């Protein structure tokens, strides 16, 4: 049923650290791999080896540049490059669920995961229209809507070693920029992380109440006055040469013609 549950027992979701993400796209690939080989229709590609390849992905990494405004203290602030992974945020007030005409889209009461029942989906695309974050993509081969499942087929999967019972993207991230846990429990590690680092919502004005949170990047390191560590070693040792060399320098300067260095 596409009515949203009023509350969910837990709010499972991801916390994405924009400070540590290095933009390697490993989570993109591991997500595509896991979700092509497991739950639901595979994530297809079109024209994969042709001139205009495209395909279905549940997780994508954007890169943004932020240019801080100049201030008297910092007249020339450096721009910051921020890699920005984006997958379904498993919103509490998910518009994608309520617009669905078939009941294929639903939010689970037990853990808050938003899923698509692919055998009910007619591929009308309305849920993707209603998602502000671009988290849903219609698979052209299967004709049904695909979205992040929070790796529901891993996190409770007793056939996997315990260490692997987290989403594929979280398990793969080499920088540890993706964290998984219950955001409904204020004592969970992810909730603590959000509290500590000032985790934020994307597009709060849309009223979707995302479960996933983003940790803002830390301020960029300040460039000190002295950057060039070799510069001190290259400074001139003596200003004026004395003795024989000093006499020679002066004598040469007196000769007619252009002198190329020093001061006459």
């Amino acid at each position: 049923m596409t009515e949203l549950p009023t509350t969910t027992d837990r709010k499972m979701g991801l916390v994405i650290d924009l400070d540590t993400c290095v933009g390697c796209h490993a989570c993109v690939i591991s997500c595509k791999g896991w979700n092509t080989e497991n739950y639901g229709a595979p994530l297809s590609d079109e024209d994969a080896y042709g001139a205009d390849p495209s395909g279905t992905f549940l997780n994508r990494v954007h890169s943004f540049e932020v240019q801080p405004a100049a201030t008297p203290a910092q007249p020339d602030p450096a721009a910051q490059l921020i890699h920005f992974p984006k997958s379904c945020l498993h919103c509490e007030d998910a518009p994608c669920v309520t617009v669905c005409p078939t009941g294929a889209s639903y939010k689970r009461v037990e853990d808050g995961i938003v899923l698509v029942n692919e055998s009910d989906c007619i591929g009308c695309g309305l849920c993707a229209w209603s998602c502000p974050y671009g988290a849903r993509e219609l698979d052209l081969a299967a004709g049904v809507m695909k979205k992040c499942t929070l790796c529901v087929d891993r996190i409770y999967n007793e056939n996997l070693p315990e260490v692997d019972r987290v989403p594929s993207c979280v398990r793969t991230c080499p920088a540890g920029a993706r964290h998984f846990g219950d955001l409904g429990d204020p004592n969970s590690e992810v909730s603590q992380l959000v509290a500590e680092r000032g985790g934020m919502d994307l597009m709060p004005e849309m009223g979707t109440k995302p479960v996933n949170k983003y940790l803002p990047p830390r301020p960029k390191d300040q460039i000190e006055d002295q950057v060039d560590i070799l510069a001190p070693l290259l400074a001139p040792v003596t200003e004026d040469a004395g003795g024989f060399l000093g006499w020679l320098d002066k004598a040469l300067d007196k000769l007619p013609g252009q002198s190329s260095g020093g001061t006459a």
Partner: protein
Amino acid sequence: MHPAPSVILFTTLSGLGFGLLAFLGLGYPGVTGWVAFVFYAIAYGLAVGGLLASTFHLGRPERALKAFSQWKTSWLSREGICSVAALLVMALYATGAVFMDSHWRVLGIIGAALSLGTVFTTSMIYTQLKTIPRWNMSLTPLMFLSFSLAGGALLAGQESLAPWFLLIAGAVQLAYWVQGDKAFAASGTTMGTATGLGDRGTVRAFEPPHTGTNYLLREFVHVVGRKHAQKLRVISLTLGFVLPVLCLWLPTDSSMVKHLMAAVAVLSHLAGIAVSRWLFFAQAEHVVGLYYGKR
């Protein structure tokens, strides 16, 4: 938004068809027999043809019946139910008019209400989307309804009513464009809020997540053709409303000319509405474009 021909065709034709059904249900014109048959054939052709066209953009059209189940929350589901109910009730009413020479008044009124209800539910599918500020306005259902009534009056041959309905619809269209042009800015959604990075400075899309295109860009980011928007608006207003009104108001005694003018008015109106619908989609900017630095 990508202006998909199937959806443009659907909203244009079915809007007109249900508008005509509404007038027929109210007894304008109160035709019977063969004349009624022709009127109903046209109305059903438009309404059903439009509905069929809309299934072409489904990924799995064979499961379309499932779409009737979620009327509690989904406007798309409500539209499906409302349209089928309108078609069934009006079919019964039409049977009376065509074969029994009788107009079952109450049934007709219910059918008319359901027909307009269908147009309203269609418009709400678009209006409900906060992600597309240009649609998320109360003028959107007003526009769909006024177009449907104007087109319906025109097709129903309501010579005295139609010009006024057309003028009202034209005015609503103008207001929709004026307010729509300001809607995205008024929504307050920017690259800053989309990324949560807005407080730190100016956000610029540095690199997209993929080198090629994808479903999101194809479906939601339609920039080509927008540069002709102003010209198309003029064309749409002229064809959709001005020309039909002039045709209807042309003083003439010959019934030949009168019929010809009525036909021109209908065709011109249809073309104008189709252009307006194309603009409705092509000019609608989805907030997801912000992640790509586009609109």
